[in-house]
């Protein structure tokens, strides 16, 4: 049996609430949001990974110049 996805609707005017199934439009919006979110997250995580790689590369070059780990930290932190 297919699981029915629901939402809780809270009416702030009278304090009542009810659980109702999502409409087809709301289900489609969820899927659309999921795809957009995943795309943005993938882009963000890729950018962060690229930044970390650049940082590691820069630190390695500084170390190759003879700087100690403490000296590298002092100028990059």
């Amino acid at each position, binding site marked *: 049996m297919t699981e029915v*996805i*629901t*939402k*809780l*609707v*809270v*009416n*702030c*005017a*009278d*304090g009542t*609430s009810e*659980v109702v199934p*999502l409409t087809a439009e709301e289900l489609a*919006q*969820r*899927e659309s*949001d*999921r795809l*957009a*979110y*995943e795309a*943005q*997250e993938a882009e*963000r*995580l890729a*950018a*962060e990974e690229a*930044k*970390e790689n650049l940082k590691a590369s820069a630190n390695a070059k500084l170390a190759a110049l003879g700087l100690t780990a403490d000296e590298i930290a002092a100028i990059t932190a």
Partner: protein
Amino acid sequence: MTMALIESKTLATATASIEFTSIPQDGTDLVLFVSARTNATDASDGAAVRVNPNGSTTSKTERVLRGTGSSTSSSTDTFFNLRANPSNFTANTFGNSSVYIPNYTGNSFKTMSADGVNENNATSAQQEIRAWLWSNTSAITSLTIAAIGSNQMVAGTTISLYKITKGSDGIVTTS
């Protein structure tokens, strides 16, 4: 100034979203407290929940400052997300966030701010500060807090909505 609870709900069973409708229009600002856990399988699996003013999924800009415990980052996107704990975080813990929405009945674009953290007995858990712009001039009459994608918020998730009303309380005066 007064701060009054409008509604607070704790989920008894899993649900995709909570929608506060007919928000009273006699307040000045809104404050939303979200303590949420989802059935997402890990933190990167869209464990967050999303805030949609008036059900709107458009005209949003979000800027985020983020710390994970080992690194920091910033980003910009088009969602209003809040931290929620995924199912693989420490049992019975929740992601906690607060949202401040000033001048929610006004007819200008709405700026909002949010902060949030994950609670997890591990070395990695996110903390975030968020700045939101909803480029819409409508008064906010409803707020939807929704789990992302196919996830649902699980039992124990609690969401509370407060209104702040300006006025003289003998200490603070407004004109």
